[in-house]
């Protein structure tokens, strides 16, 4: 053993006052160091020492966090929040793989169709990605532990928001990377962002009324219908579709804001089973 726990730290440990990360370090060291255990025994009363051993046992039992969970903790996310995020089905490797596949397919479709001079197809698909991701993050039939989660004291809206932020970061991040692959279009390639937020927030706001699957499906269908209508109304083939013009972006921003307001207003509805799902 090349080092030993500082005497002052051992006194704090015996009193149960040593804080992480020094506490974790002492826990790990005491398992292997007989000398420090002996010193600790001199400092602590029997009850406190027993409590210390129990705490140590519990720490040794504690699971090593997975890569994703560990990354979140290293990024400063509280360990309990990281565990909630790690349970988000949508963040699983398989789903992420599917998302990447969809994005790649979108590129291939866009380019093989000879549409390389216009990012329209990408802009049309990209907002659907976070919409689908958020819809899959929380809800009956989607989260296997939903029924246990909904009767827990953690507010359903808070859980939803934690997962939504996580999924949006992933979804928007993937879309952002895809945008970087389209440097020729400049800022035009970012025209998916506001529609993505508008669709996602609208889908969430409608979920308590329509259900967690129907709401994003309806919103997605409306989005597709809007794109078809905009395409039909397009006067010149080179012009961007209406949702991707400055006016269209403004409408998306207003929708996103209004949806966020409604979502906050009806937040308590996420705290019980959606009516049709019970």
């Amino acid at each position, binding site marked *: 053993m090349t080092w030993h726990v500082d005497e002052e730290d051992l006194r704090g440990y015996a009193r149960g006052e040593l804080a992480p990360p020094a506490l974790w370090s002492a826990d790990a060291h005491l398992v292997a160091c007989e000398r420090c255990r002996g010193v600790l025994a001199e400092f602590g009363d029997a009850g406190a020492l027993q409590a210390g051993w129990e705490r140590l046992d519990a*720490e040794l039992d504690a699971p090593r966090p997975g890569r994703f969970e560990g990354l979140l903790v290293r990024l400063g996310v509280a360990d309990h929040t990281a565990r909630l995020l790690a349970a988000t089905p949508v963040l699983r490797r398989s789903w992420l793989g599917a998302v990447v596949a969809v994005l790649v397919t979108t590129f291939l479709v866009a380019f093989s169709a000879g549409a390389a001079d216009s990012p329209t197809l990408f802009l049309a698909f990209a907002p659907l990605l976070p919409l689908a991701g958020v819809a899959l993050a929380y809800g009956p039939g989607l989260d296997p*532990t939903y029924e246990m989660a909904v009767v827990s004291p*953690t507010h359903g809206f808070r859980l939803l928001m934690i997962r939504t932020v996580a999924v949006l970061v992933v979804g928007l991040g993937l879309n952002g990377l895809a945008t970087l692959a389209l440097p020729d279009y400049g800022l035009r390639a970012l025209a998916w962002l506001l529609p993505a937020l508008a669709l996602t927030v609208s889908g969430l706001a409608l979920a308590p009324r329509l259900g967690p699957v129907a709401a994003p499906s309806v919103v997605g269908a409306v989005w597709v219908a809007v794109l078809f209508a905009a395409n039909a109304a397009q006067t010149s083939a080179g012009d961007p579709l209406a949702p991707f013009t400055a006016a269209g972006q403004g409408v998306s921003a207003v929708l996103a804001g209004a949806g966020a307001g409604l979502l906050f207003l009806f937040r308590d509805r996420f705290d019980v089973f959606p009516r049709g799902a019970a």
Partner: protein
Amino acid sequence: MTFTVSASGLSLHYGGTRALDDVSLRLTAGVTGLLGPNGAGKTTLLRVLATAVPPDRGAFTVLGHDPGSARGRQEVRRRLGYLPQTPGFHPDFTAFEFVDYVAILKELTDRGARHREVRRVLEEVGLGDVRGRRIRKLSGGMRQRVALAAALVGDPGFLVLDEPTVGLDPEQRMRFRELIARAGEGRTVLLSTHQTEDVAMLCHRVLVMASGAVRFDGTPAELTARAEGRVWSSTERDPGAKAGWRTGTGSFRNVGEPPAGAELLEPTLEDGYLLTLDGTGAEVAA
């Protein structure tokens, strides 16, 4: 007498279906059994009392808190343990990770205290040795015990168990009964089940539901007594019986109104249950 749960006039409709019809009840410490055929409204009642679904009409309190408001609902949930009919798991989690996840949902955010609590409940259900094993590798009985451990996190005063012994083999069922009996010491447990043996062995009180309403509320002995003088033996199935079946001895056990001079048998809880369901519109198993 102190009531853990006090409910009055609970009603709930799904479309045109009456899932709960003016249900009133009071629960005290110990295990209360909830019997009833499929579609009787047992799971709906449990979900309402577990605050997962608000009733259309009626009100209830759990440990003095009214879940009608957001604050009251949260207070109830802080005192609630809930094992759903088909508990879902994140299969890649270990037993420890899963219970830890539920403990976080139950607001145990201090890592050390939470891990000690997770360890305690896993030991309590006899899974201390497999706490590091992935849930997908556990047997059905073990998974059910993991779900029970999750429900026990935080030492809840009101424990709601929805058919926890379904699909378990006899040995696992017996083990689960021991766990439920222990869980019922000092707290209120509402146990929904199809197994009348569960009720006979575990419960100090039993409710029988049919068509969304409570048809019986009393002790298991009182339910059994309903069949007193209404169970008889015959060599052929008695066409006048409400239900009858051939037993291992070759004779028929009949339940209903016996003919004069019939050889009466000692009734069981199941006999009382069958006779309680008769006339409710629920199917009487035979």
